[in-house]
């Protein structure tokens, strides 16, 4: 794992010289973030794994275009662009293949960081699926901003760097995304445990 920025820059320099092991150390450092973002944007684990793998291959081939700065933001930008390209490709070819349909049907709960009790896990999965469905209903641009901000916890400036847009656009998209997801969750909150219900009454 990459313990500090100096180590990260050293690994990047070695990777630029063609050291694949050094690049793989960077992959191990960021693959969880990359996969998590890909999953939230794509909505299923198979597509997320493909997008993550393609992103790291692209990163290795374009490593010479990295001009310093936040390497994590540079990697996550490639991840979001890869996901965006795949979503656009799906729009052009809406007919899903049998493999993709099978992947959707077999798609179980994503692997969380820790494993609670089965009952809690089932409840949590239900909630998570409801939230994920609401996020999936957002436009691509709003979904990406919400994933990066509210799930990955990135600052506005990091989101600006990753998406290559301006601060005002990020604020506007995030605000609309939150209002849309709130309305979506209010519509299905009867399905959720009472502690998760959105309270409209003060």
């Amino acid at each position, binding site marked *: 794992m990459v313990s500090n920025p100096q180590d990260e820059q050293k690994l990047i320099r070695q990777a630029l010289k063609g050291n*694949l092991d050094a*690049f*793989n150390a960077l*992959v*191990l450092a960021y*693959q*969880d973030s*990359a*996969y*998590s973002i890909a*999953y*939230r944007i794509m909505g299923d*684990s198979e597509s997320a*794994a493909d997008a*993550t*793998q393609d992103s*790291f*291959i692209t990163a*290795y*081939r374009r490593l010479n275009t990295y001009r310093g700065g936040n390497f994590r933001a540079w990697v996550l930008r490639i991840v979001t662009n890869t996901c965006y390209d795949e979503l656009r490709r799906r729009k052009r070819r809406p007919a899903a293949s049998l493999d993709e349909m099978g992947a959707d049907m077999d798609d179980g709960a*994503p*692997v*969380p*960081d820790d494993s609670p009790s089965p009952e809690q896990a089932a409840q*949590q999965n239900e*909630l*998570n699926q409801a*939230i*994920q469905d609401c*996020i999936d209903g957002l436009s691509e641009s709003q979904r990406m901003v*919400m994933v990066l*901000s*509210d*799930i990955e*916890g990135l600052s*506005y400036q990091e989101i600006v760097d990753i998406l290559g847009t301006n601060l005002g656009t990020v*604020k*506007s998209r*995030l*605000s*609309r995304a*939150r*209002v849309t*997801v*709130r309305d979506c*969750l*209010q519509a299905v909150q009867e399905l959720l445990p009472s502690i*998760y219900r*959105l*309270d*409209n*009454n*003060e």
Partner: protein
Amino acid sequence: MLNEHDYELLSAYIDGELNDSERAALETRLQSEVDLRRELATLRQTVTLVSQLPKLKAPRDFTLDKSITKSRTLPFPMTAAFSAISAAAAFLLIIFGGYLLTISTNANTSASSPILAYDAELQVAQAPMDTQNAQDGVSQAPAPQIGRESTDEIQNQDVLEPETAQATEASLADSIPYAIALPTMTQNAQTGLADGQGGAAADQAVETTDFFAATAPPSPGEDLASSAITMQESADSSATEHDEGAANSAADLTQAIPPQPAATTTSMPTMVAQAEEATVQRAMAATASPAPAMPPTASPAPTIIPTAVPQSKAAPTIDINLIGLVSIIVGIIFLIAALATTLIRRRRKMA
């Protein structure tokens, strides 16, 4: 009722992204506006719900092996850079070829170009000069056959004038030796006939030879201008009332020389040399026989023309057409290559 800006303020307030003044203003409003407080509360709950989604672990390692890094390396002709370069080259070649063909077509079909307008101007100016020669020959030369020859030349000139409107490339080359040789010949004829002495004509011919020799320094543009000025002086010195045509032609040549293209100006020294040779021949003829022998000096111009035509203009016209055609063909080949490689790349990507 909240507007979009209010929701942006609330969203940024939740994330701690407002500056001090914005935050203070919003907190003042929150104390007095119930709707604003309710919206803030529900949005906060939403952010809390979304942010508690678990951070996912990668289901497997996404490290690369050497086989992945070496695969799918496209050869240069299949790259986007090659397509872009091909498309740019195609565009430039087609434009260049089209431009050359347009130039060539215009030169062959119309007299609107500056070169051909210059040609037409010279030929029109030439007509009164030849006419003047013929008139002088009729009035001054004693032999009747001289008058016939001059009349024939007038008729030839009448035939020639309509051709000036067509302004072919050959006539462009023809006109230049005419314009240079004719004032001298006019002067030769007038001087020789007026004096009636072969010796004087020979002297004039020697002066003419010197005049042409003086017009052969290495800088063609300045030489043409100076020779035109000299010609005008020669024409003025003839001092007959009909010499305005010759004077005007020399003046026109002086004005027309600066925009003269390189192909024409570079051919001038050759023609000047030919004119010089012809003038020496005339001088020898004038020395051998007196006045009756002079009218032929009015006709050496046609002997200059055929030698000047093929050397100066015919070959470049063919080359321009050929180069233009080849440029367009090569440009189309580049265009096809760019389209084909783009299509192949797109199909590979879709696959």
